[in-house]
């Protein structure tokens, strides 16, 4: 298969959530190679890992994020694609380790103090990972101090805060103040069902997104370091 065709097929596997040859989904791709096999093939053919990542995987996930935003597909579809993405990423891991491949940056994600909601944040994290960013997920009920420690451990990172109730989203403000107090230049994006752009502006967040794709766009337009 020519390089372009291979990358195009791989991108399609991501978009359609085709994990590997064995996976029966989607039915019209039954028996065909999935993200797993095609990534291996692409690398074995000598396509640079950066091209595999940027010209197939990331593009595929970007399309998925856009279709989700337009309500053409739903969370389970996004998760199927994320699964295909992660099968592909397994093959790229060694290149990240050897520095042959670099993440676009690092985002430290967490659900703020007092809130235990996890799934929305996890979905956003998967889509961000699919966009070539490294995600450090601190989990739920994360204190401002814990965010600060993570920033110290990941210099230059971005912070992503999630909350699902108005009573807990106020802890976003405390977190922003705490972290920006020490790192004024750090970029922070907030999201979650009750959060609005207006609220984000009010608490001094640098970005807000109602959906995962918006978070990716924020990262790619406002937070790239090189």
């Amino acid at each position, binding site marked *: 298969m020519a390089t372009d065709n291979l990358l195009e097929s791989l991108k399609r596997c991501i978009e359609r959530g085709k994990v590997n040859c064995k996976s029966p989904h989607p039915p019209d791709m039954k028996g065909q190679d999935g993200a797993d096999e095609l990534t291996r093939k692409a690398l074995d053919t000598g396509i640079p890992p950066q091209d595999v990542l940027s010209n197939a995987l990331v593009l595929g996930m970007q399309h998925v994020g856009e279709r989700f935003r337009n309500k053409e597909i739903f969370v389970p579809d996004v998760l*199927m694609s994320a699964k295909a993405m992660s099968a592909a990423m397994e093959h790229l891991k060694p290149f990240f380790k050897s520095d042959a491949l670099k993440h676009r940056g690092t985002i430290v994600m967490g659900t703020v103090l*007092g809130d235990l909601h996890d799934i929305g944040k996890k979905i956003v994290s998967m889509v961000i990972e699919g966009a070539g960013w490294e995600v450090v997920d601190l989990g739920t009920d994360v204190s401002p101090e814990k965010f600060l420690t993570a920033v110290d451990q990941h210099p230059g990172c971005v912070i992503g805060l999630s909350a699902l*109730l108005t009573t807990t989203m106020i802890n976003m403000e405390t977190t922003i103040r705490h972290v920006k107090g020490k790192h004024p230049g750090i970029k922070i994006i907030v999201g979650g069902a009750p959060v609005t752009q207006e609220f984000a502006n009010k608490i001094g967040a640098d970005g807000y997104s109602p959906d995962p794709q918006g978070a990716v766009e924020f990262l790619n337009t406002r937070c790239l370091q090189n």
Partner: protein
Amino acid sequence: MGDPLARETEVFYPAFSELTINRLLLEKVLGYRAGGTPEVISRLIDEILPEVPSRTSVQCGFSILPIGAVSVSRETFTCDGVQFTTGPIIAKQLRASTTLALFVATIGSQVEQWARDLIDSGDAVKGYIADAAASEAVEQAADWLEKKVTERVRDRGWKLTNRYSPGYCDWSVAEQHKLFSLLPERFCGVELTPSSLMLPIKSVSGVIGLGPEVKRDPTVCSICDMKDCFRRQEEPAAT
């Protein structure tokens, strides 16, 4: 049945089979239009649904306040001296109430934990479906409870408003603390954190207006900001 001058509190433990969660419903909850669900998702729903009942312990209960203990004004209502600020939208719906039923419903924390474990073990799709099934189950537990309240007050000639929850319209979630202060401790096994989060997470709480003059409002969705809610009921066409 019951003494309207005394507080009536009751907790129920309905079997999961009393709820009606099926594949079609769950597909809708997940966002798909009839016939538009990918085959793999339908299959996963079929795999998950049979596993849900053994992981739930449904509990729901109401506490009907004595007549005279409740008053409703333009933006607030008061129960046993505790004042709630719901804003005008909900207060208007409760206005004609003779009294109110406070309620809580939960399905326990096992499905939620299971969903989290599935996601953590790399099976995010299944985990998400399990989580959505749990959310739907607790809503249905609250629907089931409404029927019990209906039965309880029917002989008095009373009807029910829709149910309203702190956190909807202009009613602050922080008022969960007031609501829980009027209920027995750990009512239905649910506890409230200082940040007003109910544990188990798959729980709902709220209030229902009762009385001969109250009405269900089929257009109540028109007052809500959640334009994409799958539960949203279209307003009847203007004539």
